[in-house]
């Protein structure tokens, strides 16, 4: 706020103070109404009224929960009595023997989900953008379709596909290639991979559409120029398409990383953390604490996860800053 504005406000509020009224002040008061009147006449009140849904909505359901989330992490509450316990919740969370299992599981999930889930949307988008006319539309619709299905439905569908009997859908299909039936969700060797595949199936659509939109904005004359220099298709992909998409790719990768660390619905509905706790994720631990009324512990774990993700994003942005320019 510029200094002159502050001065004006200070003098205006002083002017409203009857004890300090001198001749000059009185004259000014009669010429200019007190600041609330001026504020209302200047449209301040109307603006505030228009802003009220946003301000109330964000205060109660946006900003306050974020602030309070940090506060609760240092408190113990049974919804009636609340008292400060400082680091007790964090100690409690860190002493949980399942925590390190959950960290490993979440890490493995994140690794697999990025390894498989990062290149697929790029490849799909690059292919769809080469399709002509109606086919391009069909391609984007097909890629986006799984994303429209409610997650509960898609997860329960996958639970059927993964059924462990030899006549289960996926087991029948791998049987055609001479492979033995697998307990996809029951065998600790496969359960995490099974979750990752179901999650990628449901989540790829949005990313494909975003890459497609970014590919349209690439300056086409760059391709013309590369062809004059005799570049083939792969060189055009490597030296023009990917560098031109750099910014979008870096941001999407960061969003994917932040997203995969917060995986919940898939393990919750597909395996409930089993077999042998192999698919317990950090968010499932948050949820379990929450359900048994340990709000402080749940908040402490959420805060730790959020801080780690924030640090990770910061590190990521710092490292990739040079490339994204």
């Amino acid at each position, binding site marked *: 706020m510029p200094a002159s504005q502050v001065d004006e406000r200070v003098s205006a509020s002083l002017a409203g103070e009857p004890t300090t009224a001198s001749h000059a002040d009185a004259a000014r008061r009669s010429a200019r109404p007190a600041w609330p009147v001026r504020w209302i006449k200047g449209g301040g009140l109307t603006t505030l009224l228009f802003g009220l849904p946003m301000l109330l909505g964000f205060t109660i359901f946006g900003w306050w929960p974020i602030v309070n989330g940090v506060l609760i992490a240092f408190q113990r509450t049974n919804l009636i009595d609340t008292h400060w316990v400082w680091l007790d919740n964090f100690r409690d969370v860190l002493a949980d023997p399942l925590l390190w299992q959950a960290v490993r599981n979440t890490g493995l999930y994140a690794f697999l989900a990025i390894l498989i889930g990062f290149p697929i949307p790029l490849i799909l988008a690059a292919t769809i953008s080469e399709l002509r006319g109606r086919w391009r539309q069909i391609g984007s619709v097909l890629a986006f379709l799984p994303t429209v299905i409610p997650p509960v439905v898609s997860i329960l569908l996958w639970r059927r596909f993964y059924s462990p009997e030899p006549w289960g859908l996926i087991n029948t299909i791998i049987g055609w290639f001479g492979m033995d039936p697998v307990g996809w969700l029951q065998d600790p060797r496969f359960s995490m991979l099974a979750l990752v595949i179901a999650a990628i*199936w449901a989540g790829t659509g949005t990313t494909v559409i975003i890459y497609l939109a*970014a590919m349209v904005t690439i300056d086409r004359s760059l391709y013309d120029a590369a062809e004059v220099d005799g570049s083939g298709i792969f060189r055009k992909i490597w030296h023009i398409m990917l560098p031109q998409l750099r910014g979008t790719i870096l*941001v999407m990768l960061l969003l994917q990383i932040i997203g995969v660390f917060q995986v919940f619905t898939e393990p919750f509905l597909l395996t409930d953390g089993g077999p042998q706790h192999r698919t317990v994720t950090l968010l499932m631990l948050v949820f379990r604490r929450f359900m048994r009324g340990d709000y402080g512990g749940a908040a402490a774990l959420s805060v730790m996860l959020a801080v780690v993700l924030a640090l990770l994003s910061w590190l990521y942005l710092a490292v990739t800053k040079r490339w994204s320019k």
Partner: protein
Amino acid sequence: MTDVTTTLASRRNARKAKAAQANERTLISSNDMRNPAIKLGVGSWKTIIIAALTLVGLYPLFWLVVAATSSTQDILRDPLGVWRGGFQPENIVNAWNRIQIDRYTGNTFIIALGTTFFALLITITGAYVLAVLKPRWGPFVDKAIMATLFIPGIISLVPLYLVIIDLPLTPGQVGIIDTWWAVWLPGAVSAFNVLITKQYINSIPHELFEAAKIDGAGPFRVFWHIVLPLTRPILGVIALLTFIASWRDFLWPMLALPSAERRPLSVAISLAERTTDLSLAMAAMLIATVIPIALFLIFQKQFLSGASAAGSVKG
């Protein structure tokens, strides 16, 4: 709610403009395609991808349709068969009547429509304030809204639950848990919506608002006669995305609406899959999928442009 539907119709003009882009060249040129080896390679690659997309995108849906109209026995024993044990469309009627899918579908509509209404209200008034009225506190609020985009959602799960148990800024204990408000309001507050709408209004020539002001139009008239009609396309996209998002939501309604009579489809299905006949659960899953799929197919362009707008704001 009629406002939303008319909004969506007006989006059609933008569609025509975009169709013009289709003819432009892409990475592979017609020159590349003159080489028969490249032509064959590119052609078969495209075919493989389209075939894979069809299989992965459509087959699970087709499977769901078949399962929803087959007996439990068939779903379990013959997952690759198509009505080999008989076609049972009555599953859908039975699910609708016997396991109360009618009520849960109604609840889901109430949740999704209410959330959409409040999302539009908060978004358009908020964006109008930030982009046109520009009060002194605007930039501060703008930054605070932007900040919520970067904070992982997990951090507000527990405190949001405490908010609906005892609403802040109210005297005494005012709880909205187990009322529709508990899902409408948190679902309607979206930083993303406010920011893309603000960007959209900023792309409208500012002289328009100035001219209206000079002609003596107050903030209400500018809002009603200029901002509302001009932002219809973006509001249509937001309405669609919010409606589908709240239709799909599972965790929050499960926590915020504990009683059975307000349960939405997503929560009801996750319970039905464990407790009722599998064929009925499959029929319920089909019912829950039909509405979002239909909306998506009707409003493809809005969806796809909305999803890419999401990318541009986050970017």
